[in-house]
């Protein structure tokens, strides 16, 4: 709760007060410079002077972008260094976000050149893998966007994933239908969301606390039923059909992007469409305006006749449906059977994506793709026998989020009333 200050906006007198030298731009610039330096000076000498091939297919064949590994490592490191230096001058304030993104991208490229030197990396495989890993994260983060923009913190995404995954496996197997599985996954997510909504909105329990407890509850219930039902009789209960890959003729033939985006599971399309729809609706519809008002200043919304609690219920529940669908990914797309605690923290990465993406659908999409890429890269490198331990790459989403919320990369601002139960005075 910050006091609204209405002090003057314009500066009437000429009293001079120097700006702080280490403003945000310079701090970011320093960061980018440092990673550029690391890339050029540490990665560079470590990299082999062999060709790094980035093939435009799923294997070693076909056309490829090639570069000498050591040269590429140093080149991109230097690029990052230069970008950081530009930011350090403090003259490129308008472009700082772009420069920051470019700087990080250059660092990633430098790292890739080092790792791939003397080997190849199939770009299509990497990209479609990234999208696949990102899929549940996108859906989970969207669930979070819906809840949190209306003021309900959703820490229970993990629990919704688990219930969704379990529901999809159980009903999908019994009904031998992917779609029945998907629908029951959504219902699974809805159950947890409904518990969250009732406890948080009606009974005013701290939302973070209740979300955490619900995660443990979902973990327990699915684990218990798994051990009682599925483990003894996997054929009957735990062999769900797999979601088919569909192809859009024509579009699927576009190089690289085609196979990644247009020859894939329906769930990917659903996720991407939802990103666009929610973005548009939040911005341009009555529901969106009211949702944002309820998340920012519920009392104001109430005094003009908006049903604060009702809207929060709706948003949390719809979020539950979406997160449940995200849970279906684990059993219907990824592994093919339910397993105890199979989501292994994906719900929290989705939460991280939500925050990293600053509570916006497209931001969440971007963050989810970035985290998905990190996971795919970790997998690729461990298979390729890289000296970099995959555990450290898997830490990337978590550390990136810590850096983000600590305000080192742009100010992250949650909806003002996020997490506050609404009680009439």
């Amino acid at each position, binding site marked *: 709760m910050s006091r609204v200050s209405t002090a003057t906006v*314009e500066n009437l007198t000429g009293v001079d007060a120097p700006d702080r030298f280490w403003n945000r731009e310079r701090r970011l610039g320093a960061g980018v410079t440092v990673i550029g330096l690391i890339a050029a000076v540490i990665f560079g000498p470590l990299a082999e002077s062999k060709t790094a091939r980035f093939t435009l297919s799923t294997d070693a064949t076909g056309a490829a972008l090639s570069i000498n590994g050591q040269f590429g490592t140093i080149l991109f490191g230097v690029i990052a260094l230069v970008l950081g230096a530009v930011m350090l001058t403090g003259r490129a304030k308008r472009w700082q976000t772009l420069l920051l993104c470019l700087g990080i991208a250059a660092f990633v490229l430098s790292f890739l050149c080092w790792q791939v030197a003397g080997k190849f990396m199939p770009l299509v495989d990497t990209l479609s893998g990234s999208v696949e890993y990102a899929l549940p994260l996108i859906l989970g983060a969207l669930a979070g966007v819906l809840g949190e923009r209306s003021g309900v913190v959703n820490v229970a995404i993990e629990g919704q994933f688990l219930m969704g995954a379990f529901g999809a496996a159980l009903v999908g197997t019994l009904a031998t239908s992917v779609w029945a599985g998907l629908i029951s996954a959504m219902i699974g997510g809805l159950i947890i969301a409904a518990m969250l909504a009732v406890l948080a909105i009606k009974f005013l329990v701290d939302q973070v606390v209740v979300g955490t407890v619900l995660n443990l509850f979902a973990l327990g219930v699915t684990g218990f039923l798994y051990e009682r039902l599925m483990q003894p009789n996997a054929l009957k209960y735990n062999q769900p059909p797999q979601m088919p890959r569909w192809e859009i003729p024509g579009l699927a033939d576009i190089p690289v992007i085609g196979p990644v985006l247009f020859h894939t599971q329906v769930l990917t399309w659903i996720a991407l469409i939802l990103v666009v729809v929610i973005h548009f609706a939040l911005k341009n519809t009555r529901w969106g305006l009211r949702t944002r008002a309820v998340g920012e200043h519920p009392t104001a919304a109430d005094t003009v006749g908006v049903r604060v609690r009702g809207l929060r219920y709706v948003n949390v529940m719809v979020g539950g449906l979406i997160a449940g669908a995200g849970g279906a990914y684990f059993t219907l797309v990824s592994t093919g059977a339910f397993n105890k605690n199979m989501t292994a923290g994906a719900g929290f990465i989705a939460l991280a994506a939500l925050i990293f993406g600053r509570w916006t659908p497209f931001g969440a999409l971007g963050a989810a793709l970035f985290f998905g890429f990190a996971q795919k890269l970790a997998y690729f490198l461990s298979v390729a026998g890289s000296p970099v331990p995959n555990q450290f790459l898997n830490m990337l989403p978590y550390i990136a989020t810590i850096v983000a919320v600590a305000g080192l990369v742009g100010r992250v601002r949650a909806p003002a009333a996020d997490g506050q139960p609404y009680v009439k005075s």
Partner: protein
Amino acid sequence: MRGITKRFGDLVANDHIDITVEPGEVHALLGENGAGKSTLMNQLYGLLQPDEGEIVVNGEAKVFRSPRDAIAAGIGMVHQHFMLVPVFTVAENIALGAEDVRGGPLGILDRRRNRRDVLETSKKYGLPVDPDALVEDLPVGAQQRVEIVKALTRDVDLLILDEPTAVLTPQETDELLAVMRSLAEGGKSIVFITHKLREVKAVADRITVIRRGRTVGTASPDTSEDELAALMVGRSVSLEVSKTQAEPGRDVLSISGLVVDDDRGVRAVDGVDLTVRAGEVLGIAGVQGNGQTELVEAIMGLRALRTGSMALDGESLAGMSTKKILRSGVGYVPEDRSLDGVVKEFSVAENLVLDMYDRPPFGNALRLNTKAINEAAAERVTQFDIRASSATATVGTLSGGNQQKVVVAREMSRPLRLLIASQPTRGVDVGSIEFIHSQIIHERDNGTAVLVVSSELDEVVGLADRIAVMYRGRILAIVSPDMPREEIGLLMAGITGAEAEPEEEEAE
């Protein structure tokens, strides 16, 4: 409204109140803080539901379960704390809840029509607002216009204004009163909640006075101020603070060239020079939000300063921690009592040592001395007339006045060189106001330098020996309390005699 009764636990906030508002009249609801005015109106607006009694609109008994019902019945309200979403534009705020949409069930916002509606209403009633400005960037006066336009776009017959003048300069207040008059002449009814007698007399057609949740009388605007005050408080009160001539001594606090930013990084204090002398009260007058808060916070080490210097008896305060400043003999009564002044969940005794808990005799760096804390508390409770069931009662259970007395008792129970009191009597009953004022003067007479900040001009004039008028982060002038109110009022609006700066007109 007939026989309205509302209870909060044991407290009866409204006790069988009857009130009738005729079409086209300005009906003033007068009462001191905590008398139950806002509670009553929140029931009329559907935010609260009465325990007993009924609301009759145009001869029809109605039950308002939520503001939705009240709006439908043609009732609008401008709240004391503005109900605007800071990150929305003016147009979005006005649209919220009554959006113009197209696309049927999709409910796509029709921003153009919405914007046009805002401009139309704004023009019709002569209330200029910029539909595309972000509310958080607007000054308070403009936010209030937005609130009024918001209510008017909903075609209200009855408009409730809850303490609308608290945040306005005297000139802005006059403009608002004129708007109220013209609305009433246009056939709308207005309920005007206030505790300021002058305004009531200027605008009201009829006055209902409420005291401790009961209607104690109705009056016409030609009743004298003294009579109204007596009705409001229940006894005759002297609004004057009795005090002798000050005998100022050495300079205790000297500030020069101080620049401070607010939370958003916007400059709030803009080159302030100020001296407070021992044995005098320096009052800072000004409409809220002109940098007073930031100035005081900077002195207390609660806010970083951009440039400038502050010294207490020659020792620089810049960069000192709040703890050290308090320890060097500065007493501080913060403006927002419930947020900064007391910890409501703590007992009276704990609150009385809130800034001394780790000093003997109350404790040391490691542990507390509960016995000493409780003994001191018992003493203060009698000395400062704090009405609490016991010293172990949590402060949240006390009335506003008694909470404030806890703060004052804490700050004045140690030797002081400088006392800073921000809005020392905001939201406090008249009895406590008198007590707190006399304590402040008593402290002055002991030779302490006192800095009082208040947005109530009456309070500043009553207490201060010199008045500094603050406007947009600057001290415009330092004047004597004998200066005519109107001139001080002009200064508060930023008008410094003949050389009024034109740019300030258009900024509003």
